[in-house]
Structure formats: C-alpha cells, structure tokens
C-alpha cells in the first residue's frame, strides 16, 4: 500500500489545532498556577520562594477558616435540600398541568436568575429583606441561596422529566398502583438521576457563591468565599492559595461526578 497522501482535507483550517491548544492553556494555566502557589514557602502569596506544605497545616488549623467552612457547608446543604425539593415540585407541577397559559412565562421566571447579572439579583434580594425586615445572617444567606439555586436544580430535573415516557406511569396505574404508589415506585426512581444532578449543581452554586452572599450576609456570618475575599483584599499569605486550591478540588470533584453521571443521558445535558 502506498503511504497516505497529504491532500486537501475538507473542513480543516490551518492553525486551528494550535489555536485550540493555546485556548486550553489559557483556560487551565491560571488554575495550575494557583495549585502550585499553594505550595509556596514565602510569606507573601504572590511571590514564589520555594516548595513547602507548611501553609496547608496553617490553613487547616486556622479557627476562622474552620468556622467559615462550617458556615458554607450548613448554607449549602440547607439551600440544596430546599431548592431541589422546590425545583422537583415545580417540574412535576409543570409536567402534570401540561400546556397552560403562562407556562412560558413561568419558565422564563424560573430561569430569570440565569440571565440577570448576579449583582442585580443580590441587591434586589437585599432590598427585599430590608422591606420585610428580615434579620441579615446565616438564615438570610440560606434563603437567598435557595432562590438562586432553584433554576440550576430545575433544569436537569425538568429535562429528565421531559425525556420520560408517561406510558410507564399509565402502565403502573393499569397494574393497580394508586397515585402515590405510582409516584413512589415509578416516577421518583426514574427522576432520581435528574434530582441528584440538580442537587449537585445547587450545592456547587451555593458553596461557590460570592456576590449574593456578600450583599446579604450580616456581621458574623462569614462563608469561605467571603473569607477568601477578605484575605485577598488584606494583602495575602499563601493560606489563601491553600483554601482556594481545596475549594477548586471540591468543585472539580462534584462537577466531574455530575458530568459523568449525566453523560450519555442526552436529556439532562440540553436546556
């Protein structure tokens, strides 16, 4: 056989491979730098002095970091549970009622936080709390996060529900299951991957959120991102690199799990 000739390849543009490679360098180099700098021996975060793991010990022993982490976890867990439950109910209600007037308006409403700049949502929520006289603190953050997380939980659940075949539910009814039994044994198990995906997204959104938290947190309720922001502003030790690296790791683990869980399930990847 003759060697493969180098001819004209349709759809290929010269340089696009290199361009894509550079693109991914741009996308990942900053994160890599951050991880490397978590092992910086220097007292100043931005100046490299040599390899050391000493800041890891310092960061984990730091009481205020621990408090912030606990706050973040409490908020994320509460917001995730409530948001996922509400989103599931909303998705079910929507699927049950079928085409109704204002359906698209409701859909638009739910996805509002996805298109409105976060700062606007943040100050609007703050104003709302001020009007109803809601005390700022851990609880106000939880409420704000819950609202903000609903669309992220809603999308994968609805996608899953839309891809579901309602003849299964009819079959269950045919086999003497009542409405609750049908829901418990058929709908819910089938919906589970969507719910888990939605919950994971909510958790990540909540634990990473900064702007809304900044606006609606009272004194004393500090989350990890708020603590990191404070550290960045105050001139910095490599401790901030360490916490950032840890948070980065958590996000990557969650998102990877989400991605590979929904992979092959086309319904949950499309909005």
């Amino acid at each position: 056989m003759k060697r493969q000739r180098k001819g004209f390849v349709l759809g290929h543009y010269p340089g696009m491979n290199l361009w894509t490679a550079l693109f991914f360098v741009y996308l990942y180099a900053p994160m890599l730098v951050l991880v490397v700098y978590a092992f910086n021996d220097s007292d100043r975060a931005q100046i490299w002095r040599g390899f050391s793991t000493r800041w890891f010990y310092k960061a984990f022993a730091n009481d205020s970091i621990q408090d912030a982490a606990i706050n973040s976890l409490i908020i994320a867990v509460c917001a995730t549970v409530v948001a996922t439950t509400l989103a599931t109910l909303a998705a079910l209600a929507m699927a049950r009622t079928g085409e109704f007037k204002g359906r698209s308006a409701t859909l638009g409403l739910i996805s509002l936080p996805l298109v409105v700049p976060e700062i606007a949502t943040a100050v609007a929520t703050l104003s709302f709390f001020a009007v109803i006289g809601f005390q700022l603190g851990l609880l106000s953050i939880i409420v704000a996060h819950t609202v903000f997380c609903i669309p992220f939980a809603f999308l994968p659940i609805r996608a899953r529900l839309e891809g579901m075949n309602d003849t299964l539910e009819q079959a269950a009814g045919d086999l003497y299951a009542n409405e609750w039994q049908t829901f418990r044994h058929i709908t819910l198990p089938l919906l589970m991957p969507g719910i888990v995906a939605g919950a994971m997204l909510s958790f990540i959104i909540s634990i990473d959120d900064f702007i809304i938290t900044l606006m609606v947190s009272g004194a004393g309720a500090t989350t990890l991102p708020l603590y990191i922001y404070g550290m960045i502003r105050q001139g910095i030790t490599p401790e901030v690199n360490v916490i950032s690296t840890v948070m980065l790791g958590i996000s990557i683990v969650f998102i990877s799990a989400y991605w590979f869980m929904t992979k092959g399930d086309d319904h949950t990847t499309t909005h």
Partner: protein
Amino acid sequence: MAEARSNALSVCNVVKVFGSGPGAVTALNDVSVNIEANEFFTLLGPSGCGKTTLLRLTAGFEQPTGGEIFLFGEEIENLPPHHRPVNTVFQHYALFPHMTVTENIGFGLKMLKWNASDIQARVSETLALVKMEAFATRKPAQMSGGQQQRIALARALAPRPKVLLLDEPLSALDLKLRQAMRQELKTLQRETGITFIFVTHDQEEALTMSDRIAVMSEGQIQQIGAPLDIYERPLNRFVADFIGDTNFITARIAAISGSKATCTAGGGLSFSTPMVGEHSKGDTVTLALRPEKIKLKAATARAKGSATIANATYLGTDTTYEIALTRDVMVTARDQNIAAGMGRFNAGDRVSLEFAAGSARMLTD
C-alpha cells in the same frame, strides 16, 4: 498517458482505504475506469460497493490512498474540490438554507468571480432549463423535495462543469416523480453535452438512462458495458444476479467448437453458449438464463424433455412459473399474459421448455 487524455475521466488503479490498522476498511480496491466525453455513465451497485466513494474521490471530498484520477488528461486527485471543474448533485440536495434559489444557483459563479450581470443571465437561463423560473426568490425550506432537486441540479449545472456528478439524486423522490425525472435528466444531458456520472443502486434507473454502466461490488468493478450488454451478457454471477432475475444452471460442457460450447444440464436441457474463460470439455460451469427467455409449451406427461409446473404466480403483466426439471433442479420462467385471464398454465401442468440459441450465458464464476 495517451489513453487517459482522450477520456473525460480516467480512473487508474485507484485504491481507497478508510481508517488504519485492523479496523481499516477498503472501499475501493484497484479500480480503473475510463469515461468518455458526453457520456451518461452510471455507477451501479448495492450500498457499500464503493460507488459513492469513487464519486467523492472524483469530486475531491476525499483523497485516494493510491492511484491516479485524470480529468480530460489533467491529473486531479490531489486538487482540492474547488479547483476541479466538476460539480455535484447531492443525494439530499445540500441546498444552502440561508440563501434564496437565485443565490444558491449563482453561488458557484460568484465564487468563480463572474460579474453580477453575467451571473444573473446564467441563473435565469439555468432556471429555465430546469423549468423553475417561478421559484427564483424562494428559500429551500419553502419548496417540495422535487423542486429542491431541480434547484440542486440547476446549481450544479450553472457553472457548466466538465463533468457532472450525481449521487443518487432521485432516491429521495417518490416513484412517479422519479420516473419523470429520469427522462428529464437524460434530455438535459443531451442538451448540455456535459458528461454525467450517475450513482445509483436502482437497476431500472441505470438501464433506462445510461449510455454505459459500471456494475460495482465490494470495492471493485464487476463489469462495464452498455445496458444491453450488462443485461443480456452478464460476465459473472454477481452481475447476473444483481440486475434482473436469473436462473443459475449448473451444466457440463459437452462439446466445444471454436468460440461456442454446447452444455448439458439436468432434466435433459441443452444450451449453446459462447465460451467464457479457459474451460475444456467435461468441465462444470454455471449458466445464466433469464426467465423471460424461456418459452413454455403445453406437453403431454410422457413427452420427452417435459417438466412439471410446481408453482404459478400471477404478476399482472406476466405470470412466473417455477418448474421442476428434476427432483432438485428448478427454473423460473416468465410468461407474458397476452390473453385475458390468470395465465396459460396451472401448477401440476406438464410443459416443455424452449429457448433461442445464445439466450443462456456462461459465467466466469
């Protein structure tokens, strides 16, 4: 290559392998073919036989793994598609959805940097050629499949290519439209004088339109010839089987005289056929005999060389009969229903078989 220069398209020893390693697929295995100028040439074969690959190599969408392709004597296999004076009519039309009919047809001319008034003139002329003048401002989505087909044809014809490639262009149309388009394509080809290379898996299409047909199978050309040659004188089992219905009869060569042979088969049948390949007296060969070449005559049960009809199937224009020559040799005969009624014979009738000299063909395999 003097021979290559006299042809519109010469394909010389072309090999195309997709992929590499153990998963590699050979789509074309040493294919050579010469297509003459002004010819309506058809590549006919089942799906996966390599006919579309050969077309795509000619258009330039793929490069051959080996071999050369000449267009009017010029070697083209390494030219990109936009440097080849060849246009394609795609199977699913591939009209540009964001352009009007006029823009679609004028696209090639615009790319060739024609000036606007010349483009306009050629577009109108081509629209008239395919009888679609009324649709000039439509978008592809606003037209039926048949209309889109005509626009696709017009778009490919507008730059007056040296060779027009048609990739199963009629396969997406319904039967009536398909039949009407066959005639029109043939007329268009004659009027424009452009060489057409037509890919199809439909034998009827191939037989009715083509000047010559290349029958392909498994990446190789099995036979090239005029429709009459292909049908009446199939070279091998594949060609005989793929085009029309055929009885394959195992026979023994009883005598050879010059280029003719006399073969005998079970049931007392005897055939005179042209010799094919290197055989000698006493060899076993396969003969192909078209069902409609068999003439049936009523016979008495005792008559020598008579056989029993096992099954009769009424087809409207014809009736086919399955005839048991011996216990395990069956042939199918086709008898035209000239008289009114279900056919001349019934299952269980005794008939004798007759056929003109040369109606059976000896095959190479």
